[in-house]
């Protein structure tokens, strides 16, 4: 019955081995610094990916045109994590071992980021996160090889609680995606709100699967307890779908919705976006008034005939910080670069920023404003009256971070 199977196995193994080495024999040149980008290319993260890639490409092109870093050119290798942590972790491993990437660039989804951060720790390769931002990455899951140039969920949740606490609303309903990002964000919002406005009541929290785009069964539940305001922790395509579907349910007539109104989301929602909603962005090009931003926006627009979304700006800033660290360490090896990360100063498009040593979090705040039509952009709304909530006002104190990091196993 088992006739011949061993021989099949044996032949197979030999075939596999020979194939494996034919394929992987391509050696990489040492005058190149390889950057492995674990991206969420498809699904609700797709528009973000395009912006991130544009920002990274632009940076790499500029640096390489100027002769590279420490005489080495930069090279980007991209893999699709499909918003799945296991795929992301496997891709990160493959990028480090098989593609020989010395540095990693993080994805969009926080769940993937958490998994990838573990791989970065295991192989001791520096990774930066420019979009994924669960606060847990810097606290209970902190590891020294990562740094973050995007405001984390704590800064966002507490920042928006700060902004909204000045509004008269007393009854909130919350809705968010049922994974790390949503949980971290809504928890920070709830805690900070309770501290600043003890009279505010959180009526209900509705959890929706990440990626779910049909809100028909969730919106009636959200409205059932008659909230005066809604805080939504969605992002990207999911937020856009939520806004579009919420409108005919009369959500905006009943309660204003606050959320992450970044450029890509505003573009995707177009004129379906209601005016007068208080929201925030992570790096709105139209509201950040620094000379370097002006230069960047001009170049970006010339190159892509498009405006840079928050994701392009933050990916670009991450690259600035990384190359700054490489220069300071005078080495393109993760083991050396990691030593200079804590306290590193870099000149971001958002202004001078530094990386806090305790949690490797850059002092980046959120930009809160109110949605409005704009004469320059006819196809979509932007935010007006934008004010920065500086990170220092709302990020966790060093003691709090220490306490959380100690919980880590």
């Amino acid at each position: 019955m088992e006739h011949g199977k061993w021989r099949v196995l044996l032949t197979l193994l030999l075939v596999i081995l020979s194939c494996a080495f034919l394929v992987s024999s391509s050696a990489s040149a040492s005058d190149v610094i390889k950057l492995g980008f674990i991206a969420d290319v498809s699904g609700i993260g797709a528009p973000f990916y395009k912006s991130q890639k544009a920002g990274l490409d632009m940076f790499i092109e500029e640096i390489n045109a100027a002769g590279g870093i420490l005489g080495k050119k930069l090279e980007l290798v991209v893999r699709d994590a499909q918003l799945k942590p296991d795929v992301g972790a496997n891709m990160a491993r493959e990028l480090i071992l098989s593609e020989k990437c010395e540095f990693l660039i993080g994805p969009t989804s926080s769940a993937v980021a958490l998994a990838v951060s573990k791989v970065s720790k295991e192989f001791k390769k520096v990774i930066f996160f420019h979009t994924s931002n669960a606060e847990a990455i810097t606290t209970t899951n902190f590891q020294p090889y990562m740094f973050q140039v995007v405001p984390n969920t704590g800064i966002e949740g507490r920042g928006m609680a700060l902004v909204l606490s000045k509004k008269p609303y007393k009854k909130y309903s919350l809705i968010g995606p049922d994974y790390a990002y949503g949980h971290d964000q809504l928890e920070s919002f709830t805690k900070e709100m309770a501290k600043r406005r003890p009279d505010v009541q959180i009526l209900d929290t509705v959890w929706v699967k990440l990626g779910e785009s049909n809100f028909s069964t969730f919106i009636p539940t959200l409205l059932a307890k008659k909230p005066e305001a809604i805080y939504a922790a969605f992002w990207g395509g999911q937020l856009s779908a939520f806004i579009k579907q919420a409108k005919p349910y009369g959500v905006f007539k009943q309660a204003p919705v606050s959320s992450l109104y970044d450029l890509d989301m505003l573009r995707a929602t177009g004129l379906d976006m209601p005016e007068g909603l208080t929201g925030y962005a992570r790096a709105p090009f139209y509201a950040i008034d620094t000379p370097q931003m002006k230069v960047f926006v001009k170049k970006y627009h010339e190159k892509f005939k498009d405006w840079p979304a928050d994701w392009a700006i933050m990916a670009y800033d991450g690259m600035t910080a990384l190359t700054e660290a490489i220069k300071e360490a005078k080495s393109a090896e993760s083991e050396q670069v990691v030593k200079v990360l804590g306290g590193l100063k870099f000149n971001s498009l958002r202004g001078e920023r530094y990386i806090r040593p305790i949690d490797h979090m850059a002092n980046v705040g959120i930009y809160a404003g109110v949605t409005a039509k704009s004469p320059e952009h006819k196809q979509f709304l932007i935010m007006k009256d934008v004010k920065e909530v500086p990170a220092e006002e709302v990020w966790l104190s060093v003691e709090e971070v220490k306490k959380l990091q100690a919980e880590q196993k």
Partner: protein
Amino acid sequence: MDHMTSSSRTQWISGITLIVILFVLPVFLNEFGRTGEYWIWVSTEMIIMALFAMSLNLILGFGGMVSFGHAAFFGVGAYTVALLTKKADLPLFLALAAAPFTAAITAAIVGWFCVRLLGLYFAILTLAFGQLLYMIVFQWYTFTGGDDGILGIPRPEILGPTNFYWFCLVLFLICFFVMKMIVSSSFGLSIKTIRENMERAKFIGINVRRYQLLNFIIAGAFAGLAGGMLAELNRFAQPDFLHWSKSAEPILASLVGGMYSLAGPAIGSTVLIFLKIFLQQIHPSMVELWAIVLGAAILVVVLFAPSGLVGLYQNIYKKFQS
């Protein structure tokens, strides 16, 4: 079969050679630095998935029952290891030993309901239970971490990539020989009799349901062990491990490798994983086409070679002999 003795001798020789090669493989791979480490990792995954495929085949090939919920036991094993090591601080070896038990208990409960149904209804009920368990793991945020899964499963210092490979290989070989014993025992023969002719099995006094349930539990236990090993290899567990599309993987592996032999599914699984990585290594964008390639391959097998690679080999071998 007049050439039985000579063929069984060659079989032994090739078997032992294979095992020896598998054991020295990482030593050889380690010569290739990071690339070698990557292939050690891939080989470990292949071993684990081969075990998973073989475990399913106890029900599928030998029992003749199509289960679309087998990933549930795989996932239960993975979460057992994840939860015990992360939350209860148990050492890995104990957690890994517990995985087949929790999986077997789950399989006993699920199986008790499922084996009462036949054919298509059995398949659908396993799918329903599998999805039910998947949803429970997905929604139980405080216990299982929901969509995020459980990250950072600790790994003992001594289990580096190479040692972990050997560890998995030893476990695999033990499981392989245990399964071989089960299949050729009187229990295994009864299971095959039930597959071939249930009425006859009943007639000769086999308690069909009890045997099928027992077989279902054994298969679940092996799947749980495989799940635990994968959780330890990846160092995390996530709800996707229980999803029905994960249940399809070992079925496809069994189909490709051939489901009427013990090693067939293992071969099929290895070939599939290798093909996928091979495609990716040729060019990353080729991964986009992986599902199309896989789907086309399955179509071909279903339509033209339903007995799989091993069957194909046997056919060619027979023709060659005569």
